[in-house]
């Protein structure tokens, strides 16, 4: 498995921490699945220090922390949020989101490249939430990114991999770069498909958190990413249009 800024992930599942029915179910989903990376965010601290209790629970999970800049729409907002996240979470990792379109939450890739350049110069290790556009990907790498995270489908949509052609092309073009399908996963089969293509990890949240049984779904997702990765490493056969008998024809008894 490729390293992410010099770090080996324990497995290919990155799991979000939002939208679970309760903190206890969130914790169980992580423990039962073994997901090794947790995405987190920063929000205004409420009365009573609600953020501190959340942080204690996440810290006890002993997983890698990937803070995001979710909800940021400008370069300045994203860069400022990243600096605040670094101070609070004590990591150089930042999942860089710069949202460009309200309905689809499609990234503003122009602002994304600019923010990635600034943050890399500031010493961050940037995980950019991007599209499958190859030229944007090149620009992000030039800006200093060592990981790319193309979307599968709009955040929270559960549509799976909207553009398998584009994702395959990206995998082929950037064979040495750690690639993560981030967002849009709805089912374990979607996660497995991304891994079968040779993606290095999958980042998802809603598909687990909003499932009827998040703990079971988290485990299903872990099974799927591991199966998909093994399948990719096992060099799958090419699909073909016509049948090809698997049982040998030679030696068949003459019975008609």
């Amino acid at each position, binding site marked *: 498995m490729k390293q992410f800024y010099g770090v080996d992930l324990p497995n290919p599942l990155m799991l*979000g*921490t*939002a*939208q*679970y029915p309760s903190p206890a179910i*969130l914790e169980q989903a992580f423990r039962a699945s073994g997901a090794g990376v947790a*995405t*987190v*965010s*920063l*929000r*205004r*601290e409420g*009365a009573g*220090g*609600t*953020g*501190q209790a*959340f*942080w204690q629970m*996440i810290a006890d999970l002993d997983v890698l922390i990937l*803070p*995001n800049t*979710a909800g940021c729409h400008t370069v*300045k907002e994203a860069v*400022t949020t990243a*600096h*605040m*996240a670094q*101070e*609070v*979470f004590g990591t150089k990792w930042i999942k860089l989101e710069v949202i460009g379109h309200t309905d689809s939450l499609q990234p503003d890739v122009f602002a994304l490249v600019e923010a990635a350049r600034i943050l890399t110069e500031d010493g961050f290790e940037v995980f950019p939430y991007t599209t499958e556009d190859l030229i944007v990907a090149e620009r992000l790498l030039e800006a200093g990114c060592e990981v790319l995270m193309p979307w599968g489908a709009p*955040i*929270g949509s559960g549509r799976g991999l909207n553009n398998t052609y584009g994702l395959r092309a990206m995998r082929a073009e950037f064979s040495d770069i750690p690639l993560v399908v981030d*967002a849009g996963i709805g089912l374990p089969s979607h996660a497995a498909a991304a891994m079968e293509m040779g993606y290095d990890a999958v980042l998802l*949240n*809603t598909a687990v958190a909003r499932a009827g049984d998040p703990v079971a779904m988290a485990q299903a997702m872990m099974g799927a990413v591991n199966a998909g990765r093994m399948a990719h490493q096992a060099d799958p056969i090419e699909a073909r249009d016509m049948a090809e008998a698997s049982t040998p024809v030679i030696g068949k008894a003459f019975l008609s």
Partner: protein
Amino acid sequence: MKIVLNGEQREVAATTLAELLPECGFSGRVATAVNEDFVPAGLRAGHALTDGDRVEVVAPMQGG
């Protein structure tokens, strides 16, 4: 003085950002910004507040 703290008008006695946090009940892992600019923890004591400042105090929260 009057400031805007996390979007709400507040009358506070604190004169620096460092004094503001305990006065308003914040502790633990928080990050601060004043007038949309990040103020690192180490600079809070030297960051004087002025009337009308917009202060943001953020903490760890669930995210995807």
